[in-house]
């Protein structure tokens, strides 16, 4: 399986940089400008409606961690990394089927389940590499600007996105059990992610609808940069992603791979 993971990572090596650099540079920019906008921000936030502040986790923007959380971790990073994860897993399955690579690999003594496992692991590694690059650039931005971002907080913030990405990759595998078109796989999973985000947001805005947040993975995400990682949520989502990926592997094994 390591051969398959290595091959997929080599194939996707450019994606690590093309995603890691923009996310990291934008995050570094956000951190770097914090000292100069800090006082203006506090005044602006005070004028926001309370429900809105709670929904988007922007109750207070007096620290660089709170500012980074509101600007990057509430929406941009999880959706971007979720999209990256599904693209990664799709490239090893539906994309490989479209290019003919899957036929070549499956001519060797390797099971479809092994290919799914490798695709999932490669997606997990790719996302981790992107998050590491983004973390490094963010810390660089903090060091240069003197924003004082805590490394452990930033690490928790970036690490907390990883389980979300795994869910996205696992959903991609499930959809691949029904469609080998990369555009369909990517579109459906991104749609699901956005849907879950909206579901979670609705539950936060209206407390009487809080129960609907259980249908969203975003219920188990958020605020790690300020509060640290909740191990139950973190590992719970990781386990759920592995279970979904395993179910997707069964679907993929049962389907026809038409020419």
């Amino acid at each position, binding site marked *: 399986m390591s051969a398959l993971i290595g*091959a997929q990572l080599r194939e996707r090596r450019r994606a690590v940089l093309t995603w890691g650099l923009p996310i990291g540079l934008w995050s570094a920019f956000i951190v770097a400008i914090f000292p100069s906008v800090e006082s203006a921000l506090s005044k602006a936030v005070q004028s926001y409606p309370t429900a809105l502040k709670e929904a988007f986790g922007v109750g207070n923007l007096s620290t660089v961690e709170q500012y980074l959380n509101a600007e990057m971790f509430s929406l941009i990073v999880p959706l971007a990394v979720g999209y990256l994860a599904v693209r990664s897993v799709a490239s090893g399955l539906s994309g490989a089927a479209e*290019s003919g690579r899957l*036929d070549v690999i499956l*001519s060797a*003594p390797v099971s479809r389940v092994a290919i799914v496992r490798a695709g999932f692991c490669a997606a997990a590694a790719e996302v981790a590499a992107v998050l590491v690059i983004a973390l490094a650039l963010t810390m660089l931005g903090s060091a240069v600007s003197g924003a004082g971002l805590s490394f452990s907080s930033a690490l928790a913030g970036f690490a907390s996105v990883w389980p979300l990405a795994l869910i996205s990759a696992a959903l991609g595998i499930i959809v691949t059990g029904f469609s080998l078109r990369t555009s369909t796989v990517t579109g459906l999973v991104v749609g699901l992610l956005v849907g879950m985000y909206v579901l979670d947001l609705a539950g936060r805005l209206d407390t009487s609808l809080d129960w609907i947040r259980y249908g969203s993975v975003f219920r188990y995400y958020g605020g790690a940069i300020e509060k640290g990682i909740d191990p139950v949520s973190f590992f719970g989502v990781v386990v759920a992603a592995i279970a979904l990926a395993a179910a997707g592997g069964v679907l993929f094994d049962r389907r*026809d791979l038409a*020419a």
Partner: protein
Amino acid sequence: MAVIETERLTKYYGEHRGVEDVTIDVREGEVFGLLGPNGAGKTTVIRTLLDFLHPTRGSARVFGLDSRRESVAIRARLGNLPGDFGYGKLATGREALSLLARLRGVADLGHAESLARRFRADLDRPLGQLSRGNRQKIGLILAAFHRPELLILDEPTSGLDPLMQEEFLSLVQEERDRGGAVLLSSHELDEVERVCERVAIIRAGGLVAVESVPDLLGKAPRRVSVVFSGSAALPDLKRLPGVSDVSVDGRRVSFRLTGEVDPVLKELASHPVADLEVARPTLEEIFLTYYEGASA
């Protein structure tokens, strides 16, 4: 022992028939052709053998192993060149070869290198920069580098220039001489005739016939045209067995010939012949032969 055995192999894509009731066997050391027009179902048979498609009914066994349940063990012993070989645009042939060698546990890539030299294949250029023919060469190397017991080639010579087609077909013959079996799908009768011992004719998802190549060609009519020289009387070819549709135009006699060639040649040899032309049967003519036979 049969290397490949299918028993009433049937695959439907929803309501659409891929193949139905295909029963064939491929023996050790045999080059077996799957002959049929594009869309006939040849690729469906191959993909079912490889477990890319799951049969709707019937069964397929390769090396005596079930194609569905023991697919990984089967694929360890075969090489496959897909019909439209592709591997993405960025990877090079060498990267693909390296991955497959690892998956197959092959450390010695000497045979791959010698195949690359023989086919003048560039293993170090990204596949997206290669022509279809040059990609096809890489595909063949990936299929054959580990000297498999069974080589499955789906329309292998499409996109290759005539010289490379020759080289390709000689490799198939070498595989057979080495004792390996080859399953070759093609819509080119010439190609199948050159290298195959037996052939299964598939059309519109149905198995029309399984024949040895000499029997196949013997049953199909050839169109023969003879120009006689001198002023001697023209021979009466109508009385010869297998001759039909005789037409005379001056000193040129044209006719259809089915079956034995020898009596006709002996008759022609007793007359001064200025020119002789024998047109090979087309694939459609061969199909018609079988359909006419079936409806008689």
